[in-house]
Structures are given as structure tokens and as C-alpha cells.
């Protein structure tokens, strides 16, 4: 197991490298950059004082350097103006638009993003697991059909619309403040119990909204897996020998069908992060989604880059966790080095 974990961790290094490269290419794709736009504007106003600062920033971030060098400096494997200072050293760069280090800007948002995505995963599991098992053991019953239908509906409704409608009703029925992940007065305060409480009362709308499609997909998959298992010989044998139905279910078929369930986290996480990005924009949550959108629009290169990097990293780590869990569950995987998956 230790060997497998080590190998799996080693594999993450090239993955993250490639991801960082793709991210950097994408954020550099739009023609021009934030600073040259800014410089053009300042020049037209004849403002030389701030022009100097921008020239300084330009040099600092090497915007006049060739592409590969800028990338290497950004990651931190090539000395820039201030020596080795990039992602690897924990320097996320400078946000041109907000005129602040990216790190100061995004800290809390990333934390909230993490909390949100984590709760969505928990919600998905908590709902999908019992329903999936119930539906599989009661195949073709009335509840099976209606839950399947509900799952399809969840799959087909665009997230953001559900968010809008739920938001509206939450406001009318429960008087929750519109939008946001906490009451506005807590935003700039340090963490306290009251703040946590406020986050919790606001969290359920986005969690439900983002969770529906993932839950629906997971229920379907668990149902299919469990149904496959339930038809196998050993189940028939055990039943013929008089094993109590519930114990039989829990003892073997459920454990077997748990496998794909766990490996699904790897798929679930990127889609949850995607979903949360758009829902966060609609609900104006103080997570990474809306700020990322702004940064992309205003070509705030490093801010957008670090958000994209953060979200991708979240997904990569999720895949890692799911692979490790899977290896713990299934000896075949850790012995053949993941080739069986």
C-alpha cells in the first residue's frame, strides 16, 4: 500500500506540471494583457507617476520576457526579477486589478470554495447511498420509478436556473438574505461561531443546487452496480441457505458495488467544481467562481491563473484520494499498480 501511495504521489508531479502549463497558456491566450491596457490608458491621460509603478510591475513580472521564461518564473523554477518566487515558493503573484498580492485576495475565498465543494460531496453521498441501495433492492417498484424519474429531472435542469428559483423561494418562505454564502455583516470579520452559523444557514441552497445532478448520476450508477451483483450466483446460494436478507445485502453485494462508488469521486469532483463555479456566480457566493470570472474578463492574469490552478489542484487531489481509497478497498489495484482500473 505504501509503495502504491508513493507511486501515485510521484505521478502527481508531471500531472500538476502539465496542468500548470495548460493553465498558463490559456490565461495568456487573449491578445494583450492587463498592464498594457492600463499603460495605454494612463498614457492618454498623461499620468507619469503611476506609469512608473506599472513599468516596475511589468519588469517585476517579466511581461517583456519570452513566453517560456514567464511560465518558468510563474511556477518558480526559473529566477525572475526577485529570485525564485513562484507557485512552488508559495507566491501566487500580483493581482493587477485589485492591486494586492493574489494570496491576500483569495485566501478566504479558497477556503469557502473548499468548504462548499466538500459539503456538496458529503451531501451527494449521504443522499445517493441510501436511495441507491433502496432503489436497487426494490427494482421496478413504484418508488424505483419515481426516484429514477426525479433523477432524470435533476440531470436535465440547468444548475443556475434551479439556483435562481430556490433562492427566490428561500427568500419568500424563510426570509434568507438574497445571495451570498453568509450574512453581509460577517464578511470582513474573523471566524467566530456566529459566522460559522451564518455560513451554515446559507450553505444549504448552493449545496442542494450543485448536488442534484451529481446525486442523480450516482444513484443511477449505484443502482446498476448493485443490481448486477444481486443477480450473481453467490447471492442466490446465500439466500438458499437461509441467510437473513439484510445481512446478506450488507455482507457481500454492497461491498462489491461500493468500488465504483468510491472511484466516482474522481469524476464527481471536477463536475462539482464546475457546477459550483456557475452557481456561485448566480448566487454571488464569496467563493472562487465569481472572482475567477471577473479576473478572466479583465485579463487579470495571475489572479485568474491561480484560481484555475487551485480548482484543478482540488480536482487532482480528489482523484488521488479516490484512487487511494480504491486501492485500500481492492487489493487487485494496489498490486497491479492501478493498471486494472
Amino acid at each position: 500500500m505504501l509503495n502504491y501511495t508513493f507511486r501515485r504521489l510521484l505521478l502527481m508531479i508531471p500531472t500538476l506540471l502539465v496542468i500548470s502549463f495548460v493553465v498558463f497558456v490559456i490565461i495568456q491566450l487573449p491578445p494583450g494583457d492587463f498592464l498594457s491596457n492600463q499603460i495605454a490608458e494612463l498614457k492618454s491621460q498623461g499620468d507619469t507617476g503611476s506609469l512608473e509603478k506599472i513599468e516596475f510591475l511589468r519588469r517585476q513580472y517579466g511581461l517583456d520576457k519570452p513566453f517560456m521564461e514567464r511560465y518558468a518564473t510563474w511556477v518558480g523554477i526559473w529566477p525572475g526579477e526577485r529570485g525564485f518566487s513562484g507557485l512552488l515558493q508559495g507566491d501566487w503573484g500580483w493581482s493587477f486589478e485589485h492591486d494586492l498580492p493574489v494570496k491576500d485576495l483569495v485566501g478566504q475565498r479558497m477556503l469557502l470554495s473548499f468548504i462548499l465543494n466538500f459539503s456538496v460531496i458529503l451531501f451527494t453521498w449521504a443522499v445517493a447511498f441510501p436511495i441507491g441501495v433502496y432503489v436497487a433492492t426494490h427494482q421496478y417498484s413504484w418508488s424505483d420509478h419515481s426516484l429514477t424519474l426525479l433523477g432524470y429531472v435533476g440531470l436535465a435542469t440547468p444548475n443556475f436556473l434551479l439556483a435562481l428559483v430556490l433562492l427566490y423561494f428561500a427568500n419568500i418562505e424563510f426570509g434568507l438574505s438574497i445571495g451570498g454564502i453568509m450574512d453581509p455583516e460577517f464578511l470582513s470579520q474573523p471566524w467566530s461561531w456566529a459566522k460559522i452559523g451564518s455560513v451554515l444557514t446559507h450553505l444549504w441552497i448552493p449545496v442542494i443546487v450543485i448536488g442534484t445532478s451529481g446525486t442523480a448520476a450516482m444513484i443511477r450508477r449505484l443502482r446498476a452496480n448493485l443490481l448486477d451483483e444481486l443477480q450473481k450466483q453467490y447471492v442466490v446460494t446465500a439466500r438458499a441457505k437461509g441467510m437473513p436478507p439484510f445481512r446478506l445485502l450488507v455482507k457481500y453485494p454492497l461491498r462489491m458495488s461500493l468500488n465504483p462508488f468510491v472511484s466516482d469521486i474522481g469524476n464527481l469532483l471536477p463536475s462539482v467544481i464546475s457546477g459550483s463555479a456557475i452557481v456561485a456566480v448566480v448566487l454571488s457566493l464569496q467563493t472562487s467562481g465569481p472572482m475567477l470570472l471577473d479576473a478572466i474578463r479583465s485579463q487579470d492574469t495571475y489572479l485568474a491563473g491561480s484560481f484555475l490552478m487551485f480548482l484543478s489542484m482540488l480536482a487532482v487531489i480528489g482523484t488521488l484520494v479516490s484512487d487511494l481509497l480504491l486501492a485500500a478497498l481492492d487489493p487487485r489495484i494496489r498490486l497491479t499498480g492501478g493498471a486494472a482500473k
Partner: protein
Amino acid sequence: MSATDERLAHYVSTEPFAPYAAEKLTPEQERFYRASQWQIMWWKFKRHRIAVIAAAVLLVFYGSILVSEILAPYNLHTRNATHIYAPPQEVRFMHEGRFVGPFVYGYRMQLDMETLRREYTPDPKRIYPMRFFCRGDEYRFWGMFDGSFHLACPAEGGTLYLLGTDRLGRDLLSRIVYGTRISLTIGLLGIAVSFLIGIILGGISGYYGGWIDNVIQRFIEMVRAFPELPLWMALSAALPVTWSPLLVYFGITIILGLLDWPGLARAVRSKLLALREEDFATAAVLMGASPQRVIGRHLLPSFTSHLIASATLSVPGMILGETALSFLGLGLRPPVTSWGVLLNEAQNINSVALYPWIMASVAPVFVVVLAFNFMGDGLRDAADPYR
């Protein structure tokens, strides 16, 4: 009675001798065994009632693309400044107990001086009978021929807003009908892109195996780890502002396809890995067929049906993706009209509270996505007819 009488008379059947009679196929079995693979698939698909209905629904939607201009009662850009945010008009048949045929009541509009909201109420004095197969707004059919023929038009001097109007007084129903053309084709084009990449990379990976397979698999894992939407957002923001709407449209389809292929590539690979060991593949290789020929001619056809099924299942993801991007204002831009562009106007809470009919554009999204899912399920079940 004597014992000899009880004995049965010697009997020989006069029927011709047929030792295989028991193994003879009934006409039905014969039909089944002689049918081609695709025919059996079709029979199997037909049994899946919901999938057939879904296919019919999709056919109707895709058929409407061909004649959007005729189906829509108004032109895409027709504005009516006196009917801004007008609610849907109900089609009625009876007026004061008398049958008139399909008609709508006109609006009586009042401006609420406190909230500055336009309030519309049906005005029973104004009766606008609908006209059918009529001449109405001018349009250019597929941007090529001028025409003015519509399936249904408003009465002369009257209005016909079956789904209400938007903030510029444009008919929502007409806009949804036009939007169908963009939204539905974007999914197909996106799938075409993702198919191309998926089959090529999956094919190479599965056919050659070894280190090539390993490299491609790692690459696929990386692409899968990307959260789609943020990446789509970044990519579509990179489309130059100077591009014409048509170019943006193609740009978006390529972006959508660019992230969708890993699932398909994996499916192709796992099938190829199994199939390349089959005798017919070995035979083809021994006869000197090139890899392209072995893959394209011998291996791919044996799981085309699976590919079609999985493609059907990923079209809805693309339609939803386009909707999401346009909703955020990063996808298609007006004057190109897709369902996502229409929903962009429903972005704020006001429209939910005050003008809920603006959200009508979500209904076709919902129906089409559901239909694709149901049809895909049916196709997947039918894809392997010999099971």
C-alpha cells in the same frame, strides 16, 4: 379376446423421412438469424418505448430547425415598443359563450406610478383571431431567400405573444424557435469535434498499447482532472472580440468538444484492446493491412453502435455547457440567439419575481436534455443486440 388381437397393427408413417425436423427454425427465428446486426438493434430499440418517444421528440425539434422562420410567428428581431415585458397571451376559443375559433384578447396596459412597472391585463373588448398559413413579418429564409410566409400570424394590427415578450418587446416564442437552430446544432458539432479527437487518440492508444498507451492514458487522466466550466470560461474569454458571431459560434463548438473527448477515447481504447486479439484482426494484420485499415475497416465497425450510444449521451452535456456559457455572457453573443443567450436575460432575481415567463426558454433545454438521455439509454441497451 385373444392376445394376438391386442397387438397393434404394424405401422409405418407415410411422411417423408426428415431427421432434422426437430431442429427446424420457425419463421420468426429464421427472420431473427438472417437479420443484419443493425436490423436486430432496431427491433430491440423499438421495444424501448420511452426511448422511441424521446427519439420522436428529438426528430420534431431537429425538424423545426429546417423551417424555424416559418414556424415562428414573428421575425427574430421584430420589436414592439408598446409591449415591453408583456405576459403570455392565452389562446381562447369561446367569447361570451360564442365560438369564435382560436383567438387572443388584446392587452390593456397601465403604468404603475409607484413601482414604474407596466401592468398588462387582458382586454375582452379587443379580439385578435389567429391567422394560419399567412403572410406576416418579412424574413430571409436561412439567410438566403426573402419570404414572409408563416404557419401562424397575429391578426392584422393585433398581437400574438403566446409566451410573452422580453425587455425590448420581442416575441419570446419566436426567439425560442430561432434559438433551437443554434442550441441544437452546437451540440452536434461539438460532438463531431470530440468524436474526431476521441477516436484518433483512443484508437492509437488501444491499438498500439505499450508506452504509447501509457502516455495517452496519463494525458487523458490530466484532461479529466480539469474542471470543465472554469476552463470553458477561460477559453471562451480568449476568443477575440473582433470575431464575427459565426466565428464565435464555431469557436465555442470547438471549445466544447475539446474537453469532452476523454470519455470517448477511453471507451474506444478498452474496446480496441479486447478486439485486437480477435482472429479476424490478426488475419487482417497478417494479410498486410495497414494500421489505419485494420482500425477503420475491421475494428471500428464492430463497436460503432456503442460509440453512437455514448455520443448521444454526451450531447446534452454540450447543450447545457453552451447554455451555461451564454448565460454567463461568455458564450454566444446577441444577435446570435441560442437558448443560453435567452436565459442570460433571466439572470437576475427580478425576472423570477416579476417576469417569470422570461424563463420559458428553460423548458426546451429541459425537454431536449431529457430526450437525449432517454434515447441514449435506449440506444445503449440496443447497442449489443446479441447479448
